[in-house]
């Protein structure tokens, strides 16, 4: 059986990255924890943003983590799917808006 590059159980080991560089690892986790605290945005809003971004960056660990985080916070599946669509819309929009560059180049090169 072939071994997959991604293993769901590796998410449990995320904290171990500090073992090879304690200073930078701890700085990252401190920063990460601080980012997700209640602030001008609620922790619930941040969780939905994180879920959308997880899809855009196509991180399977992040998708697992923030789907679970959403369930824990009582976020409903309709809200989660809308967040994913926001991410998808930006991603597709980002692709499509480059069409302007294509059009510009096309016009520049054409007689």
């Amino acid at each position, binding site marked *: 059986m072939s071994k997959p590059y991604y293993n769901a*159980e590796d998410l*449990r080991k995320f904290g171990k990255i500090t073992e090879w560089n304690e200073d930078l690892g701890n700085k990252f986790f401190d920063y990460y924890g601080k980012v997700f605290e209640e602030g001008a945005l609620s922790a*619930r809003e941040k969780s939905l943003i994180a879920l959308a971004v997880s899809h855009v960056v196509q991180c399977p660990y992040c998708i697992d983590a923030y789907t679970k985080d959403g*369930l*824990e*916070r*009582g976020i*409903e599946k309709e809200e989660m799917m809308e967040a994913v669509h926001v991410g998808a819309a930006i991603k597709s929009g980002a692709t499509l808006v480059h069409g302007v560059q294509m059009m510009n180049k096309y016009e520049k090169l054409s007689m």
Partner: protein
Amino acid sequence: MALLKSLSARKDDLSKPANQLKFLNNGIFREGELPTFKDKIAETGNFPLKPKKLEILQLNLGYMCNQVCSHCHVDAGPDRREIMTKETMLQCLEVIKTTGAHTLDLTGGAPEMNPNFRWFVEEASKAGIKDFIVRSNLTIILANKKYHDLPEFFKKYNVHVASSLPFYKREKTDKQRGSGVFDKSIKALQMLNEVGYAQEGTGLKLDLVYNPAGAFLPTNQKELERDFKVALKEDFNIDFNELFAITNLPISRFLEYLIASENYEDYMYALVDAYNPKAVESVMCTNTISISWDGWLYDCDFNQMLELKVNSKVQHISDYNEDLLNDREIRISQHCYGCTAGSGSSCQGSVT
């Protein structure tokens, strides 16, 4: 999904507490992948775990219930026949008269299904216990005409009602507790409000008990309470006092679900990762005695279901002695991680 029969009626291997304990002690814990609960609490000097002042007497009046919830740690259901007899109730009443505990907590199954429930509530209310709780699944109030007056009955004896409601939306509630449970629960809550529960100036207390509908932990209790209050008021004009967030412990039917859905290991990792030493200090077994339908004594309702009787010379209500009991060592296993995760979990919700 809610189930049709208990593990016991299905003669499932997990209906036997010894098999549950064997499962919890093997695998990731035996292989050392995760520390046992004993090793974990020893790190902070909490082993052996000892009781503090007794505050709560919790009586399980029987495992019979009108619902078969998929997460039930009691494995309760209509097919269970274990019911506390009047004789055992009389023994409990003697203890209630003399106990130093300030809270009496009746649970089940559906405690209201015990044929002597009303007599027992009347008698127990005479003992002058400060806080008298009945854990009601709500739907029992609508299950049969003979239960329709329960809100009035609870009011008459100033019973503090603690009601299960896993979510403020239909889908998640019905998935866990059975089709139609949400609508009946809403109706029952409205009936309790109508007689004065959770209404200003009545002193009648109505709390809700939330437990996650799946393999995840509860979030902050105050945040959940805020969401429940807004949603139930806006959608159904329902009031309640407090919300208790309870973690599902990996025993009985919830353990069955975790294994069948291949969530067991991740769930145990989540519990161990969320271990909070502060929660150990006020975990409910340190202030509670749980009494089973047949009068045996346990550190908590979960140990009762695992048949882990108190580690004391006194093991039955007929020999009850509070001083001797308070000198015991609390029995623990890996399921105890459920009460020490995050803000901690108890029948009164978070403990920190």
